[in-house]
């Protein structure tokens, strides 16, 4: 072994590099001075208190929550069928189909955003929360499909066959056998896709029209130095929410893998 200690030290430095920048947001959100620089003037919760008084922010929050929920339901529903098809059945063009579904991950954001704006206006859909939902569902699909694929991977197909043999119908089998087993995967997929939509900016920036989502609202505030502490407080809450949702998702994903043993 060639000096593993150097590598370990590097790994820990790398973690600092990954985490430190993000942690500055919450740190300075408690700073009573309005300039984001050391030394910290004093500690305050004022910036958090003031968040509740801003009507446009609250409206943007509701917009984001609504969009995220619909996106989570839509992409998970579509992803559920696709994941099952990819894991359970073999068919010609399957690899191409799986590749196609992953495509939204690698297309540059600006190209997706500009081309969708042009398409939706062409179809007569004005930029609104509806167009944001359609765009975010597109972006969220690769996530839901890959999470649900791993949920179905661990699913023993003989359980379904047993159910058919006992004379239970297709839909009843799905509801009573398949669904309960893959449900942790479904929950994980919904949490992840919700977060993808909740954090997404570029598409929402192009497609939301005059109904800003939370990231679009933050973008409009970033330009004004006076609004900075507000953005920090809001950003810190969002960071915490995203991380909590994702840890929760990870927990459910683990449970779906563990169910194989039972």
């Amino acid at each position, binding site marked *: 072994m060639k000096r593993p200690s150097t590598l370990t030290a590097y790994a820990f430095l790398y973690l600092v590099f990954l985490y430190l920048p993000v942690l500055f947001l919450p740190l300075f959100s408690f700073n009573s001075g309005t300039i984001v620089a050391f030394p910290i003037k004093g500690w305050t919760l004022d910036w958090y208190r003031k968040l509740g008084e801003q009507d446009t922010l609250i409206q943007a929050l509701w917009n984001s929550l609504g969009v995220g929920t619909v996106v989570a339901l839509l992409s998970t529903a579509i992803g559920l069928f696709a994941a099952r098809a990819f894991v359970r059945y073999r*068919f010609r063009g399957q690899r191409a*189909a799986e590749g196609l579904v992953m495509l939204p991950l690698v297309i540059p954001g600006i190209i997706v955003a*500009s081309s969708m704006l042009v398409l939706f206006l062409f179809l007569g859909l004005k930029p609104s929360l509806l167009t944001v939902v359609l765009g975010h569902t597109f972006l969220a699909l690769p996530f839901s499909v890959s999470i649900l694929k791993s949920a179905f991977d661990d699913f023993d197909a003989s359980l379904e066959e047993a159910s058919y043999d006992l004379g239970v119908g297709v839909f009843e089998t799905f509801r009573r056998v398949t669904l309960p087993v893959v449900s942790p995967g479904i929950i994980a997929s919904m949490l992840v896709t919700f977060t993808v939509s909740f954090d997404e900016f570029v598409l929402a920036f192009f497609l939301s029209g005059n109904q800003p989502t939370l990231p679009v609202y933050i973008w409009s505030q970033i330009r004004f130095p006076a609004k900075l502490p507000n953005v920090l407080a809001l*950003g810190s809450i969002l960071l915490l929410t995203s991380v909590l949702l994702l840890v929760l998702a990870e927990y459910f994903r683990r449970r779906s893998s563990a169910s194989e043993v039972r």
Partner: protein
Amino acid sequence: MIFRSEASRGYTLSAPATAYVGFLVAAPLVILIAYSFWTQTYVTLDKTPTLKNYSEAFADPLVRHLMLRSIWIAGAVTVVTVALAYPIAYFIAMKVRKKTIWLLLITIPFWSSYLLRVFAWKLILGFNGVMNSALLMLGLIDEPLDFLLYNEFAVVLTLAHAWAPFAILPIYVSLQKIDPSLLEAATDLGNSPLQRFMRVTLPLTIPGIIAACLIIFIPTVGDYVTPALVGGSDGKMIANLIQVQFGAANNWPLGATLSLIAMLSVGFVAIVFVITATRLGRRIR
């Protein structure tokens, strides 16, 4: 009989996903192509087909400059991110026992809002920002450093941070797949650890490196947020110009043309890269 019904079930169940993604990839592309042959003066759209947008885009030195800079910055981001990430992937795959915890640690920051992470870097690198004020307070510098923010360096640093998990995960997967007996064989045949790494480990992880490079390079060329927030005028990229065409300049046909040119350039560079990297990988082996 069974096969046919299996296949048809597969098609039916996957159809909503493939149709949805396929439609939203293909339809905008068709309309984008159509738009690129039209012209627009103020609000009126002239649908007489013309190559004016293309000749305008190719003749404009700004377009060429921003396109080349986007590819150059994306290339630099890719190299820096992958180089920084490879040792971590190696560390997790080869040296750590609690792999899942490390993988989780690596991916958690990625799940925080991309916009906020970029914004955090703007605060850190600013003239009156976190880094300068900290260095001043520690007495390491006498006046704020002015080369931190609003340049290509800031863009590369910010994106190397933002894309970290995208580089680590594919390389980690390819390292995981390496058969340990190959490494033992190399050692038994008298290879030093460095030789073993260069002749066995590295060549076997080329597919992972290629995947990491593509996952980072392609979205970076079209990145809008980072150049807009930390790039300044020296760090502006093609996406910022495209956004202007769809926003303030209100010239959608030109915007569509630029999008298509960007897409083709990215595709071209990516294909050349994959071919070269694969050849290079074979040569090492």
